């Protein structure tokens, strides 16, 4: 009964309208090459400042869900992934568009994204409260080990583990700017009052993900590839659905599982789902030539991550992927701290988010199917005007949170840093996650050491702590093991020959 009363705000017209607007906005942002869901959420967080928590947060979730889905549009029509999550969709989506089946490819992507999103939303609503219940028992050592695990997994998922680790460590060092969380002593502020409580989180994220993209867009302004404009027959046939059924279901569960692991993301999930669909297919040779199950696998997986990545964020206070890391800024603006206590203090917000995730997924389906015929027009937005508009939103967004002009410099600084990192293969996602997990890691490490009298063995002896530490070692060691295995399997045919 209580849960139903928490869902009541979602039936209000203004809340529904806001979620719809967020989903549509996310879809358009995701569809435009180079503009990511992360950027969309970072850019529009300040707009939720004056909204009620359920309304504001669900608008951001709508942008997230719409943005991840929207990435498939330019993947299919332009052969340029709108978001990294849709990179694998290019493999079968663009060949289908070239054969004149762009509408069907987009239709399958929409259906797969919806099914993946709905399955993960059910898992979110079921699993998150259970996990939060367990996390209530966590103390400083467990949180320290959890933060460490989150950091190492993002480092190990970065293309270059060394650069990923450097990005993460730098992020922790940057997060030390401002007052020390235990003693309140000022660190690295250079006497600037605006840095007394550290770099403002949301302007830093806006710079890192939105402004850095502006620099990249300026570089790309010269290159233009015309989109496929012939888009018709949006509904896949019954035979197409039957053929893609297992790839779709498997992709949804792979996406959900990957999303739950802190620090992973849609990009990883869609590649794993694609490879798994090809591996288990009776006709693997068709993959990459315009094959429906290829699209079904990647799109169901990347949208399943959206809801699943909210599980560690809400239940543990650790973001599931980089977009939920940014989404954390939205929670903070509302004065909410994600983590198990949120389920105790603000159950209305938690249940509202569960419901909002379902609603946003349904809106995504409606807008997706309805807009398929006009998607190619969205890709023709004048890029120069779009670039300047993004700059404008970056500035207003960064300023309006604290009305502090210093935040504008923070945003520009992080923008330039983000562009440089992107250019030289350093992970912006690792830096972002470290900015969030750094304070959690530091506070719990120091608090735990204080409680254990500086005895590291005692500090790290709990079973859950040991489990997270084992997972940390595994996540760091796995890329090396995988590389060695790949080398071994590559060497094998040469030996037999």
């Amino acid at each position, binding site marked *: 009964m209580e849960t139903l009363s928490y869902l009541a705000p979602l039936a209000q017209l203004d809340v529904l309208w806001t979620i719809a607007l967020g989903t549509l906005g996310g879809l358009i942002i995701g569809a435009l090459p180079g503009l990511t869901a992360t950027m969309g959420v970072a850019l529009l967080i*300040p*707009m939720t*400042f*004056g909204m009620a928590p359920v309304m504001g947060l669900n608008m951001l979730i709508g942008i997230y869900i719409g943005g991840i889905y929207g990435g498939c549009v330019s993947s299919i029509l332009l052969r340029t992934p709108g978001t990294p999550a849709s990179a694998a969709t290019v493999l079968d989506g663009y060949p289908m568009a070239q054969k004149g089946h762009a509408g069907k490819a987009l239709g399958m992507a929409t259906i797969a994204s919806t099914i993946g999103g709905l399955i993960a939303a059910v898992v979110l609503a079921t699993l998150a409260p259970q996990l939060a219940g367990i996390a209530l028992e966590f103390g400083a050592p467990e949180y320290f080990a959890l933060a460490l695990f989150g950091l190492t997994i993002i480092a190990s998922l970065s293309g270059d583990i*060394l*650069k990923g*680790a*450097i990005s993460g*460590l*730098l992020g*922790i*060092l940057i997060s*030390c700017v401002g007052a*020390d969380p*235990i*003693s309140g*002593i*000022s*660190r*690295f502020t250079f006497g600037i009052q605006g840095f007394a409580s550290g770099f403002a989180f949301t302007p830093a994220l806006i710079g890192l993900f939105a*402004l850095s993209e502006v*620099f990249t867009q*300026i*570089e790309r*302004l010269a290159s233009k590839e015309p989109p496929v404009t012939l888009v018709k027959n949006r509904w896949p046939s019954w035979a197409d659905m039957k053929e893609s059924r297992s790839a779709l279901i498997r992709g949804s569960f792979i996406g959900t599982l990957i999303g739950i692991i802190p620090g992973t993301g849609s990009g990883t999930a869609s590649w794993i789902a694609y490879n798994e669909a090809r591996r288990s297919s009776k006709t693997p040779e068709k993959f990459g030539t315009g094959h429906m199950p290829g699209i079904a696998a990647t799109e169901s997986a990347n949208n399943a991550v959206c809801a699943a990545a909210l599980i560690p964020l809400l239940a543990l206070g650790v973001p599931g992927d980089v977009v939920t890391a940014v989404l954390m800024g939205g929670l903070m603006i509302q004065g909410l701290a994600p983590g198990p206590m949120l389920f105790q203090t603000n159950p209305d917000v938690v249940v509202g988010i569960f419901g909002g995730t379902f609603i946003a997924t349904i809106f995504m389906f409606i807008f997706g199917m309805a807009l398929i015929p006009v998607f190619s027009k969205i890709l023709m937005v*004048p890029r*120069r*005007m779009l*670039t*300047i*508009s993004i*700059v*404008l*939103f970056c*500035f*207003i967004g960064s*300023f*309006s949170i604290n*009305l502090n*002009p210093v935040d*504008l*410099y923070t*945003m*520009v600084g992080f*923008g*330039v840093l983000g*562009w440089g990192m992107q*250019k*030289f*293969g350093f992970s912006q996602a690792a830096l972002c996650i470290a900015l969030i997990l*750094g304070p959690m*890691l*530091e506070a719990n*490490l*120091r608090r735990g*050491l*204080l409680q254990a*009298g*500086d005895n590291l063995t005692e500090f790290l002896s709990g079973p859950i702590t040991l489990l997270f530490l084992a997972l940390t070692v595994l996540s760091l060691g796995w890329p090396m093991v995988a590389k060695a295995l790949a080398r071994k399997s590559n060497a094998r045919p040469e030996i037999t020959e």
Partner: protein
Amino acid sequence: MSTAQHSKADIWIGAGLLGFCAFATWRTLQIKQVVSSTIAGPSFVPWLMIGAVSILSLVLIVRGLRSSGLPGSLSTENLPDRGGLLKLAAFAVLLVAYAAAFYPVGYIPSTLVASFAGLWLIGERKILVLLGFPVIMTTAVYYGFTELLAVWLP
């Protein structure tokens, strides 16, 4: 687009990171210490991070040096050419100037000038767009934020 050899870039970045660590070391030494029963004081985590980044930077340099003579080191970074870099640098300067003017000068005049200059810098030459877009965008955003979202702008 020009390209920079991957391994050489790594060596330079590693050296830059070591320089940054030296700077961070100097700043960490300035952090006030408190009397405490634990080794984990306010500069504990910064020291750990500086140590770890220094070690990994050395690894990056060594990796770059080792691979610079190998055939695999031919992988490159795509960097803009000199003109492109100048354009990006000018755009960054414009953003800093916009940040400096935003609060004291006010949103509307600073945004009008910055939008015009920004459009011109990224190659827009149509006079109608150069003049019309900043005016429409600036006023629409001002109205949207101040009237609809109740966000104060200077």
